[in-house]
């Protein structure tokens, strides 16, 4: 059975979805979703331990050897992302039960769980596959599921947000297919490893360059690469809380993985980074995201939107490492996928509790006045996760930023270091606005006291908050795994 873990990783959530629709019972749906999420986490950890040490697991689906059939391939990088996705899923799924009850009509719950399973299957499928077209198929599964999940938000604005995301996301996916098509026409294969070998002796480089451009823009739309991020703030702000928590922690991260895979393992990195201005482009766009999006967050009143804009900025940190294109930079990028994932996941999970207790989806900075007294644990969690977002030493956010700064110094880019510091100061300012409202401003006299979030939600939330601190000290997985992945990408011995 152990040999089949790569297939089960994706097939389990994929089978759970139709089962949930068949049984059509919300309790069953919730239990199945939770069980599947935990199972996925166990499988992902097992795969990570087996694929460690520079080895890779190859699994031929249908017993057709690649490139004839579709290959699943687990290596240091993909197993890292698999753990990230299933870790988030197993925190969010058990928490969903109470949160959804308040935000989505009851007769839609089982559908929402099915969509959640499909989204999970899609994200895991993108990560684990070694086939360019298979990536597209699973990208569409996860994307369609995400559009529906977002549209199920309470406000009518959720519909418009989902529509806009759908347009931009589908354009992105179509661009990706065009890029893959050009590569296929030049190599005759769809298997990524086979493609990489055949691209070395390709007859004409023009289609390859065009493919690079299409894949960059297409995946850039999916990962909200500045300035292709317009869909993100509204999508995160108006989706149901559990959806925001899950999507914010995983969706864009998986797209970053696809981009890394293509840049370093399919295309020739020497061409991507030496012959084309990729480095400069990524550094400039990332710095712009870090500064501009943080400034927007600073002036945002709606808290969900505030943190959504902060996500755009944080994606800037992730893409910065791609632009730096050295070991420290990539280690920073890859570990930031995880570190920012748990941080933002924790924040949105906590916000879900606030939404539940306040009874409104629109939580503004002014409306959480006195939160420190009304929901002490939630407010405390927000402070810790906020510190991680800023990158204070002792939190997860600090570790990855440290590596990014080291990477920038290795390149001699002092101005990038300055930009990271400035962006962190702005992050401090917007987190402070929330903390100040929660602790220092006196609550209005007439305010009703509302209690702490339900225990089930609080456990998930504080668990993720604990991870923010845990990954700030214990870095053997977050940095160790990321460094191994960076070695893999750069093709250097560990």
């Amino acid at each position, binding site marked *: 059975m152990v040999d089949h873990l790569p297939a089960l990783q994706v097939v389990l959530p994929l089978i759970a979805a139709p089962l949930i629709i068949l049984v059509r019972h919300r309790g069953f749906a919730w239990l199945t979703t939770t069980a599947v999420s935990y199972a996925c986490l166990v499988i992902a950890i097992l795969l990570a331990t087996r694929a460690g040490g520079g080895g890779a697991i190859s699994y031929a*689906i249908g017993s057709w050897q690649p490139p004839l059939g579709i290959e699943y391939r687990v290596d240091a990088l993909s197993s890292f992302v698999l753990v990230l996705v299933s870790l988030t899923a197993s925190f969010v799924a058990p928490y969903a039960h109470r949160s959804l009850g308040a935000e989505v009509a009851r007769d839609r719950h089982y559908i929402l769980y099915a969509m959640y399973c499909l989204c999970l299957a899609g994200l895991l499928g993108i990560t684990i596959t070694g086939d360019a077209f298979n990536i597209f198929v699973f990208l569409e599964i996860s994307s369609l599921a995400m559009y529906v999940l977002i549209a199920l938000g309470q406000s009518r604005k959720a519909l418009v947000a989902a529509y806009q995301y759908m347009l931009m996301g589908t354009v992105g996916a179509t661009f990706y297919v065009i890029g893959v098509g050009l590569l296929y026409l030049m190599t005759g294969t769809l298997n990524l490893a086979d493609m990489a070998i055949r691209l070395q002796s390709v007859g004409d480089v023009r289609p390859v360059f065009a493919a690079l451009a299409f894949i960059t823009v297409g995946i850039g739309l999916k990962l909200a690469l500045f300035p292709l991020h317009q869909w993100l703030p509204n999508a995160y702000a108006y989706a149901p809380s559990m959806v925001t928590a899950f999507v914010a922690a995983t969706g864009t991260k998986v797209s970053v993985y696809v981009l890394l895979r293509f840049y370093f393992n399919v295309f020739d990195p020497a061409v991507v980074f030496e012959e084309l201005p990729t480095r400069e482009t990524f550094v400039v766009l990332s710095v712009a995201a870090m500064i501009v999006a943080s400034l927007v967050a600073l002036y945002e009143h709606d808290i969900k939107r505030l943190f959504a804009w902060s996500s755009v900025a944080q994606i800037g940190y992730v893409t910065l490492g791609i632009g730096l294109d050295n070991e420290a930079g990539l280690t920073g990028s890859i570990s930031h996928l995880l570190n920012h994932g748990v941080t933002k996941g924790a924040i949105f999970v906590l916000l879900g509790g606030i939404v539940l207790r306040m009874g409104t989806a629109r939580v503004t900075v002014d409306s959480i006045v006195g939160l420190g007294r009304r929901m002490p644990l939630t407010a405390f969690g927000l402070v810790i996760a906020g510190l991680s977002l800023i990158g204070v030493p002792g939190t997860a956010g600090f570790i990855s930023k440290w590596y990014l700064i080291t990477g920038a110094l290795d390149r001699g880019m002092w101005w990038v270091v300055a930009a990271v510091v400035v962006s962190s100061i702005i992050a401090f300012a917007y987190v402070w606005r929330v903390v100040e409202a929660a602790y220092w401003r006196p609550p209005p006299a007439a305010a009703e006291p509302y209690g702490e979030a339900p225990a089930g939600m609080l456990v998930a939330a504080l668990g993720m908050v604990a991870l923010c601190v845990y990954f700030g000290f214990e870095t053997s997985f977050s940095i160790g795994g990321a460094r191994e992945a960076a070695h893999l990408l750069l093709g250097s011995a560990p």
Partner: protein
Amino acid sequence: MKSDIILRVIAKLLMPFTLIFALYVQFHGDFGPGGGFQAGVIAAAAVVFYSIIFGLEAGRRLVPGWVVEKVLATGVLVYAVTGLAGIALGGNYLDYFVLDADPVTGQHRGIFWVEVGVALTVSGVMIKLFYMFAGRSREPEDA
């Protein structure tokens, strides 16, 4: 259109032929163009046609919405479980070679069930899409 006798008679006559054609497309897919997807669309077209002529309610009596929902979920399950059968019998996921002592027969068996799964899901989804869009009136009446 509900009162047009010619249409109603033709619709009833056409129904079995459309379904037989769907079956033909389904099972002839190994030798000619066609397969589960196309067959699913054709089968769905029969139900949609019936619903257009006799009205949505009549269509829903013939094939109730909840049945359609079960069918479209069953299709994916059939496909995915065919894959698991490969593992259970000692092969990889979606490995059809092990489904029979003779590998080529095994392939046939695997492709058969997989196409059945595709046809179920596709026909179910297409009918459901029609029900959903047609069942929505122009102005939100119960808003």
